[in-house]
């Protein structure tokens, strides 16, 4: 059977599976809709968190990003896994004990202030919409590349699927579909990686293959360093970014991960505090399987690409290169007309442009794997995008129905609240779909926003709410606003300075960055400012009421968590 048939079959089966699960696990109450009834096992929640967290970007783009960044790509690997240590140790168990349904719930109650709650809702909505637009686009791209349909048709099909199980099933439906999606995506990522590792290094474990030897007996990484330096690039195992920036980006990504509302909310779904701790551990195991394989896929990919294309005759390239040239993910332009592909660091002489997504997407073909593996990668990419989109849509609908409508109209019935939640989810799917079809030009930049915001607002405010009894609403609000305004201002200035304020590009270059920290890493400075301002303001204003201080004491003790409670 050809690739297209296999892709239709595998993607079709996976979609049928998701819909089946959604029907079986549809939500009947708000508690099921918001937190899956609070009875999810730590293992299942860990898997669901893995799928929730790993987006189309993790599945398709990250390996390629690392392939071209080499050592500098480590910021993503450490940043997007290290956050789980913070989550497990500093947030998840206490938020679980707190026992409400959302992050703004915690902020509003702990800081006895609806203003704080509304600021938290706005942050949650902004972060989630930013993210979900990218996911819908990811679904569309996978569709168009593998199923040969138009990107927009792909987005609409993706919308219908997510609509079905997010709106119908709420958190309960999402949780169990995410478990299935995790299995699909990890299988799809690992199979080609293992085969490529065996081909290149004779080692079935990509994690070890990365440190293995290639055909001629030299170590893969040493060889890669040598080849890249010869072509004028930086050696693979050493970076270009200054240490300060690496430090700041890694910290911002870690702290941002721990502060993302769709990740935090997953830990409300387990029965007990100790399950929340354990579940974070399982989640990181499932994430680490992909995150320790990705750097291997990256190194294998760039090695294979250089080995099979660089310095080769233009009209005698491997078949996979020609296939992917049609999608313009690989572009070859024989500038000097010598019939040979030159791949060098100098952009004037360089004749080969490789899109980063190729490292994962073309992997099965590079390794000459059977056609069904290609179909599997398509299903995997789709699973990664859909699972993340669903988790985000749930945060959006919960923020609207619970943190806004229910909070300001406490009298509404459970049934009505559920209806509002479903409507909000439906509207959010449509908005997300719209952004998928008409992507704002700044999708790539706004990811920096999402992490920067989460790092500079949610993370400090929750940490202080748990670890400082003295922290009051004045401190928290002042801190959140300082963190937000500073981080947003910095990112907007350096990312959009030319478009918005007509600043010359030269004024926005890295020479002008504060302490040499890029906009991607500035969230860590925003976080520090938030902490400092909060403490100073809190010391100058009255301590929080006794009831709030008691609540803080209570969330520190595991016993008595029960199932998450209604007000």
């Amino acid at each position, binding site marked *: 059977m050809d690739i297209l048939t296999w892709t239709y079959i595998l993607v079709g089966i996976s979609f049928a599976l998701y819909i089946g699960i959604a029907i079986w696990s549809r939500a009947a109450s708000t508690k099921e809709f918001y937190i899956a009834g609070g009875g999810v096992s730590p293992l299942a929640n860990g898997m669901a968190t893995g799928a929730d967290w790993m987006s189309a970007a993790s599945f398709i783009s990250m390996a390629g990003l690392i392939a071209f960044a080499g050592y500098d790509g480590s910021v993503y690997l450490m940043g997007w896994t290290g956050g789980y240590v913070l989550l497990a*140790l500093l947030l998840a168990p206490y938020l679980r004990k707190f026992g409400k349904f959302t992050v703004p719930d915690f902020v509003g109650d702990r800081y006895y202030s609806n203003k704080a709650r509304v600021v938290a809702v706005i942050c949650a909505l902004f972060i989630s919409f930013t993210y979900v637009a990218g996911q819908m686009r990811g679904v569309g791209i996978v569709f168009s590349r593998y199923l040969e349909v138009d990107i927009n048709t792909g987005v609409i099909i993706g919308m219908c699927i997510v609509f079905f199980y997010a709106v119908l099933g709420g958190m309960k439906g999402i949780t169990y579909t995410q478990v299935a999606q995790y299995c699909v995506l990890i299988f799809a990522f690992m199979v080609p990686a293992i085969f490529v590792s065996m081909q290149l290094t004779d080692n079935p474990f990509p994690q070890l293959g990365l440190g293995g030897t290639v055909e001629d007996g030299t*170590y*893969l990484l040493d060889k890669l360093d040598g080849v890249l330096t010869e072509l004028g690039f930086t050696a693979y*195992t050493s970076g270009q970014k200054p240490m300060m920036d*690496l430090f700041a980006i890694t910290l911002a990504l870690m702290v941002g991960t721990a502060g993302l509302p769709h990740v935090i909310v997953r830990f409300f779904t387990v029965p007990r505090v100790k399950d929340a701790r*354990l579940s974070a551990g399982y989640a*990181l195991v499932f994430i*680490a399987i992909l995150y320790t394989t990705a750097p291997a896929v990256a190194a294998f990919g760039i090695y294979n690409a250089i080995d099979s294309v660089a310095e080769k005759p233009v009209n005698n390239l491997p078949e996979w290169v020609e296939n992917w040239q049609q999608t313009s993910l690989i572009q070859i332009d024989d500038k000097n007309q010598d019939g040979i592909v030159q791949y060098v660091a100098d952009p004037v002489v360089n004749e080969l442009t490789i899109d980063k997504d190729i490292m994962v997407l073309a992997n099965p073909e590079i390794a000459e794997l059977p056609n069904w593996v290609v179909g599997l990668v398509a299903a995997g990419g789709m699973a990664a995008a859909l699972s993340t989109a669903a988790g985000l849509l749930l945060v959006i609908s919960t923020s609207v129905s619970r943190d806004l409508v229910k909070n300001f109209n406490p009298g509404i019935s459970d049934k009505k609240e559920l209806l509002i939640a479903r409507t909000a989810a439906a509207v959010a799917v449509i908005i997300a779909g719209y952004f998928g079809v008409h992507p704002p030009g700044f999708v790539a930049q706004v990811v920096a926003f999402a992490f920067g915001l989460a790092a500079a607002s949610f993370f400090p405010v929750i940490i202080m709410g748990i670890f400082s009894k003295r922290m009051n609403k004045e401190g928290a609000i002042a801190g959140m606003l300082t963190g937000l305004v500073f981080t947003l201002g910095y990112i907007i200035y350096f990312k959009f300075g030319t478009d918005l304020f007509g600043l010359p590009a030269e004024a926005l270059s890295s020479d002008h960055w504060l302490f040499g920290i890029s906009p991607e890493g500035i969230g860590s400075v925003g976080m520090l400012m938030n902490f400092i301002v909060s403490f100073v303001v809190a010391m100058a204003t009255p301590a929080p009421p006794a009831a709030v201080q008691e609540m803080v004491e209570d969330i520190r003790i595991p*016993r008595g968590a029960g199932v998450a409670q209604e007000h």
Partner: protein
Amino acid sequence: MSHQEKMKAYWRKNIKILLSLLAVWFTVSFGCGIILVDQLNQIQIGGFKLGFWFAQQGSIYVFVILIFVYVWLLNKLDKKFDVHE
């Protein structure tokens, strides 16, 4: 020991565990993976330069271990102070 004192002692122990685990978290990622990377890269183990290995592999393995150690220590602490569920 009164109940309140007991809870204070529990919290102090908890903070101590957190701080020691976070010290390891910081050391493997920011320490070995970023600050000391050039020095550690002088050491080669198999095909890996050690600093590079910490940045792209080692720190992630340590993160996983850290969370499970935390779960184990805290479950023990909860039982000892009789606050387990």
